[in-house]
């Protein structure tokens, strides 16, 4: 639309108009680029937080979990791969530290309920629970053992391990997309969730802490005969 109004004085009239058009064009350009940037940043307006983006990324493409040397509450050493592959079970994985008094206790009760449901539904051959400590500096077989007893873990359903090499902590957390931030009273806060990991070490789905039932159903569906 190139309007040519009946400008009385051309010199004075043409400049504001071309300025107006230039501004209009620039405005439109900025708006379009801005919207594209906002859309890309929020995955087309569907994911505003890192946590949602982490979950949708895993749902789109499963992540291979790296192998680490771990030990359990009895002090027995093995690799994470061996643990996951010991049978055909799908694992529901979470991250804990045994000194925890806040969120991990919530996670503990979620896992306790899951343990009960697995036993009640006879799913113990198809679904396992695995808690991994991200506090290898403080966690040892003794603290793991105390935590396991506190949570009433049944080792055939629910396993608890920690890293043998504290240096692996960063890579473990990064591979799952867990961010741990220090909280008051020497505690940690982290994006807790339920992670579905198959026997061959593929992280296939991440669910909300409150979605224990769905996690169990999804895990059972993955191992459906």
């Amino acid at each position, binding site marked *: 639309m190139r309007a040519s109004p009946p400008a009385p004085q051309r010199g004075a009239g043409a400049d504001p108009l071309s300025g107006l058009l*230039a*501004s209009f064009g620039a405005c439109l350009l*900025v708006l379009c680029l801005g919207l594209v940037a906002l859309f890309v940043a929020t995955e087309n307006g569907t994911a505003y*937080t890192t946590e949602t983006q982490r979950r949708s990324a895993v749902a789109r493409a499963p992540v291979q979990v790296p192998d680490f040397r771990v030990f359990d509450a009895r002090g027995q050493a093995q690799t994470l791969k061996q643990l996951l592959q010991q049978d055909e079970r799908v694992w529901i994985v979470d991250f804990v530290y045994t000194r925890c008094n806040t969120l991990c206790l919530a996670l503990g009760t979620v896992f306790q309920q899951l343990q009960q449901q697995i036993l009640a539904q006879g799913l113990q051959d198809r679904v396992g629970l695995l808690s991994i400590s991200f506090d290898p500096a403080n966690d040892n077989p003794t603290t793991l053992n105390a935590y396991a007893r506190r949570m009433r873990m049944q080792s055939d359903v629910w396993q608890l391990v920690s890293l043998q090499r504290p240096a692996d902590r960063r890579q473990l957390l990064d591979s799952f997309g867990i961010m741990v931030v*220090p909280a008051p009273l020497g505690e940690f806060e982290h994006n807790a969730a339920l992670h579905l990991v198959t026997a061959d070490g593929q992280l296939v789905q991440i669910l909300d802490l409150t979605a224990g039932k769905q996690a169990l159903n999804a895990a059972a569906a993955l191992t459906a005969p």
Partner: protein
Amino acid sequence: MTKALAILLTLLAGLLSVPPLRALIEQSMVWHMLVQMPLLVLAGFCVAVAWPQALGDRLARFNHCGLTGFMLAQCITAYWMIPAMIDRAVVLPGADASKVVGLWLAGVVLRQSFLKAPLAVQLFFVGYGLPMLAWLGFYMASTDLRLCNAYSLESQLRAGRGLVLLAAALGLAWAYSVRAQVLPPARNTLKHP
């Protein structure tokens, strides 16, 4: 004097992204969203005050009534209010650098636009931007969902309350500047009845 202040503010805001000061914005959402980010915009704003001609008339041509500048500043600030992008700025140095440059630039163009914009245009963007800021603050302070994986919920609550206060303070500052924009002609008419 203004120039020294502008440079000082720019350095200060930028240095918050560099160790050892970086620890502050990594650990506290308040330091990140309520100190560094506003400081960056303010620094850009002051630079534009100190060097009014720096952008030149050629760019001013594209900023009729300050519209383009407001639009740009709105997009940049909205982008860095997305929780996932705040996380990225904490974790990725590249994202953090673009945040520093972007918000500083937003300050520069905001100043240019405020100079050129009639009150109605100012009202439109201020009336849109500040409620957005306040809404985000209310949401952050009232939800028990952790929006940023990089920050604790406690940090988010404090930052949320702070954002509401910031929006209110900016609104007052703008109202004060409007008073300055409106009053002189009123005084003139009194002087020359």
